[in-house]
């Protein structure tokens, strides 16, 4: 089959690799009909996530049809059309039973590695380094899905692939970021980063009752999308002082909740941006947490800081004094996707959410290398790329 393989920094190749096969009784094999590139895939592409090996198959956002099931998978049949959550969860451990699916105790075969780095191991994730289990990802024609009796959700025929694909990660990640803000009537929410997750965080914040949502970015088409599709007010961080503007926009109070949808590769100019770029380049820190620092500074007293953008290692110069003395609440983590699949599917079916608007590029899986490069540099107005494996590309 064809698959997108990581070979090093800024080096992904579409290669012919062996077909996946059932390795455990609760596995299924999915023929991928649509997959997408996540902003967090760029952290792999840029080499900021350790423990990648040349030849690893990328991709944790994918959907498709079931072509094979293991002996213990009773809920799926050949031909079922499913979306697959990006964290792999067993469904039976303490964490799964308490809806903390991305913290599953049992799905990381290389848990010792994550324990060494994080103290304890979170769930395995498709195509996201050996620290997260070393699972082959879904930017491929076929993918092996472990614990297939727990993760995949059947998609009704009235929901098209371009809507359903975002249930795997992007939409629930934006939603959980907003849910973590514990939004109350009258609240203002500020969102750093108007990429796909930021767009969905804005929509979700409104859905959960926010009075105002302010999106922060500098890429014109992303700011336009946040205004026109998600209904946010917007700030261009290159053109204005974000902290001062947010204070001004909120009558001097500050946003009640701040969402960091940028993560460890946040862009920023000036001396601070240079400081982080140099430190990250020589691996003295693994993130450039500009958005996080600014969000802490901007957040109102007693407010909530919700982190959706991915952090992988160590960051620097986090203003803990501001966070502590303003009594902020921090909420974060990989998304517990399983918990949100059905409620969000219902929002899509009822027309309250139509996530397909974020797609700017539809390409063949064969063109993945070009797609990564374009997405990284935000060329051609690129916000979100979906990739179709060749067989489906030809027939559609």
């Amino acid at each position: 089959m064809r698959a997108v393989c990581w070979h090093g920094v800024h080096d992904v190749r579409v290669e012919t690799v062996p077909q996946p096969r059932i390795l455990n009784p609760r596995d299924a094999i999915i023929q991928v009909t649509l997959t997408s590139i996540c902003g967090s895939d760029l952290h792999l592409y840029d080499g900021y996530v350790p423990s990648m090996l040349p030849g690893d198959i990328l991709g944790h956002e994918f959907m498709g049809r079931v072509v094979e099931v293991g002996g213990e998978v009773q809920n799926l049949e050949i031909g079922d059309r499913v979306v697959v959550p990006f964290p792999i969860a067993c469904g039976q451990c303490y964490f799964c039973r308490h809806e903390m699916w991305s913290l599953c105790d049992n799905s990381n075969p290389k848990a010792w590695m994550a324990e060494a780095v994080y103290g304890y191991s979170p769930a395995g994730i498709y195509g996201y380094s050996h620290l997260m289990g070393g699972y082959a990802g879904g930017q491929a024609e076929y993918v092996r899905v472990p614990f297939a009796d727990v993760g995949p959700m059947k998609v009704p025929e009235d929901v098209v692939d371009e809507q359903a694909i975002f249930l795997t990660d992007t939409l629930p990640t934006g939603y959980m970021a907003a849910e973590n803000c514990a939004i109350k009537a009258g609240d203002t929410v500020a969102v750093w980063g108007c990429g796909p997750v930021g767009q969905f965080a804005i929509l979700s914040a409104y859905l959960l009752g926010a009075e105002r949502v302010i999106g922060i970015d500098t890429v014109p088409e992303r700011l336009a999308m946040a205004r026109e599709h998600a209904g946010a007010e917007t700030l261009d961080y290159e053109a204005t002082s974000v902290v001062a503007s947010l204070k001004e926009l909120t009558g001097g109070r500050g946003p009640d909740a701040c969402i960091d949808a940028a993560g460890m590769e946040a862009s920023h100019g000036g001396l601070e941006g240079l400081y982080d770029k140099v430190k990250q380049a020589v691996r003295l820190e693994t993130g450039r947490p500009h958005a996080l620092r600014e969000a802490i500074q901007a957040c109102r007293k007693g407010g909530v800081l919700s982190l959706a953008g991915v952090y992988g290692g160590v960051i620097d110069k986090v203003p803990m004094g501001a966070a502590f003395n303003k009594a902020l609440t921090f909420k974060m983590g990989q998304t517990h996707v399983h918990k949100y699949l059905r409620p969000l599917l219902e929002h899509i079916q009822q027309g309250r959410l139509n996530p397909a608007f974020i797609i700017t590029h539809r390409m063949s899986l064969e063109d993945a290398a070009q797609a990564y490069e374009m997405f990284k540099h935000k060329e051609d107005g690129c916000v979100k790329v979906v990739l179709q494996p060749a067989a489906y590309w030809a027939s559609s």
Partner: protein
Amino acid sequence: MSDVANINGYTESQDRSDLDVTVGERLLTIVGGGALAWYGLSRRSLLGLATAAVGGYAIYRSATGHAPVREGLSLVMSPAEQPMVVEETITINKSADEVYTFFRNPENLVRLMDSVESVEVQGEGWFRWIAEPIPGAEVVWHEDIVEDRPGERIVWRVAPDADIDSHASVTFTPAPGERGVETRLRFEVYPPGGAVGAAVAGLFDSIAAKRVKQYLRHAKQLLETGEIATVEGQSSGRSDVEVECW
């Protein structure tokens, strides 16, 4: 005392002569011992540890030009007074009785340790273990259960004729707030003394804790999910077999 474990190749070569090992034999055992020590280190099982220890002994034997075990040197033969201990804990989301029943069945223990081929029940409380960590290097040992308290604790001890005396225990304590069972797996190994003992102790310190934790993880995965999570045998853009990241 029997010969260097029961690894066939070494047993035969040493049985051929009561004299000091020849130069050729020294070369062979250095290479073989090194390979065996490396191999033992690369296996994720306590048995692998034992293999590594035996490999370390083979290196010692060829480096000194003596076969101290054959000569019965007390320096090497008398076990250390203090055991080497490794203990790891994991919480398993099952009842104490379920976890006890799992550990009491030797078939399940084989599934935890990937270099073990089989275990046979031999009469009351006795088990005969067989492993073949490398082709032709079969390792056999006997264990019996010396303490068996359902739902609470099991203690195994290797037969007295083994080269390295050891025992293992597993203890079950209910965790608070219905969080399952705290399962504590403990190995005590009495290594031979002297240089070999020091080598064994070094190996034990560096690898045993990680390995024992892995046994516990496998037990938890089997008990909670019915399978051991794996990526071995999956697809990749590498031409070799799946690289094991140790």
